[in-house]
């Protein structure tokens, strides 16, 4: 009874077991509602139709499309995070600060206008997809990383200075090494934007495959069960990646809790 009261009271803290039970409960309600409350012969497909559509997609090579998407996502994220780190860490050097800050403002500039230019520059195909994702993601990564750097307490720099460290070593120790967990968090937080971009980017060259190209093709056929199956698939991949990154983030010493 006390637990029941707790879960409906604002700001109450509940145990991990209760949290897990609540998640399972909500998922069960969603599945039951989808199974029994969606009327037949509407545009909104039933759970059964979506599962059949998903099985059909799987038989027709969905797995390889997922691999293509993950490969594109991984490559673009890796390049983007390297570029973003260089630009963000350079913001601590006064000469480069204005350039780094300018990059954060570029996220207000829609990239669509540069698509043709980037197509010619990158040669199209896979290179164009990677370039578009890298450019798009980097603006967000740089903004988040610079925000992390700006939030470093001055006491952290003073501590290392009193340890006889020079400015370059302080940059390495305090800004880069001591905040490495935030790199994972920055990727995790911005992952949603990447997955949103995937559809547009993969649709630009459907020959390359991937979930995005599959979704555009399916959308044209107005096959709603398949569209729902693909959307659900992308959502589950996103949740999976989010959980994996959260797990990595939690493994850093900075996230260890008081005993």
């Amino acid at each position: 009874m006390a637990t029941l009261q707790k879960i409906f009271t604002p700001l109450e803290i509940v145990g991990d077991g209760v949290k897990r039970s609540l998640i399972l409960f909500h998922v069960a309600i969603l599945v039951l509602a989808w199974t029994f409350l969606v009327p037949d012969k509407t545009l909104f497909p039933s759970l059964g139709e979506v599962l059949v559509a998903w099985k059909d997609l799987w038989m027709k090579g969905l797995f390889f499309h997922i691999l293509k998407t993950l490969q594109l996502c991984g490559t673009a994220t890796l390049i983007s995070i390297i570029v973003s780190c260089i630009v963000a860490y350079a913001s601590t050097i006064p000469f480069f600060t204005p350039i780094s800050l300018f990059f954060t403002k570029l996220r207000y500039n829609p990239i669509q206008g540069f698509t043709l230019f980037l197509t010619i520059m990158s040669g199209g195909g896979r290179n164009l997809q990677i370039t578009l994702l890298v450019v798009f993601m980097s603006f967000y990564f740089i903004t988040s990383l610079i925000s992390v750097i700006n939030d470093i307490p001055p006491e952290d720099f003073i501590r290392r200075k009193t340890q006889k460290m020079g400015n370059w070593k302080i940059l390495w120790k305090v800004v880069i090494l001591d905040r490495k967990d935030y790199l994972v968090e920055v990727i995790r937080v911005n992952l949603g934007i990447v997955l949103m971009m995937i559809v547009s980017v993969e649709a630009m060259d459907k020959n390359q495959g991937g979930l995005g190209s599959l979704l555009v093709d399916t959308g044209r056929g107005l096959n709603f069960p398949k569209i729902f199956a693909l959307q659900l698939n992308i959502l589950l991949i996103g949740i999976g990646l989010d959980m994996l990154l959260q797990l990595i983030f939690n493994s850093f010493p900075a996230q260890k809790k008081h005993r």
Partner: protein
Amino acid sequence: MSDYKIGKPIVTLKDVSKSFGNKLILRDVGTEKIPFVIYDINRADLSQGQTIAIVGESGSGKSTLFKLLAGIYPATKGSIEILDWEDNSKYQTVRGGDVGFVQQTYPLSRNQNVYEMLTDAAIQGNVPKNDRKSIIESYLEKWNLINQKFLAKNQLSGGQKQRVAIIEQLLCSHYLVIFDEPFSGLDVRNIEDVKNSFRKISSTSEINTIVFSAHDINLAVELADVVYVIGYERGRDGLILPGGTIVKKFDLMEMGLAWKELTAGHLEVASEIKNIIKT
């Protein structure tokens, strides 16, 4: 009164002022009237460094003075000369790293365990590679942190964080260590721990010197050999002059009160200091 001899100056401040923009924070510290010189004090048959307290109301410039002393930023005016630890016949302008500084919040690395943090400090203090492990472990034993060796910052209690921060400074071969409000927010037991830390640092080396700030005046008078009171002076027109400065110095060694348990004499000094701060 304990016998002692005043040795060579370790740190000398001369007319030190600090402004941020147009705002004067600290004014003329170390004048002819009230010199600010930290000496090497020698006591017969005892290896003990000096302990200096800085007291004053909040916002009077104690932290700014500490950051100047630690060489974190330069003085706007005046000079801070420190003994060259390598060649004791020379003095140099204080630089970041010459003086240890245990900050009020005990900042530590987020992504290192205690042993890794202390290894960093030992490297910076030029502790030979072959001796590093044994020296770090002896410090961990002495400061009762051996069971926390592989714990991260967030897994340490406030007192443990403070001890790690102190060992870091000691491993960096700092003979002069500043403590910004080390007793702030501590309970009776933790205050005793900090007092023990002071004794350990003082007894480690003859020239080890502690400079600390405290709001508890009785505690400051009990622990210090010299107490500087920082506050605001009034001009001839009666108006408060901008910038905190040293308004009074109490040499407890000279007064025969240093290195003794709390006596009525200490309480009298404490009472006088409280009156100065109030006015």
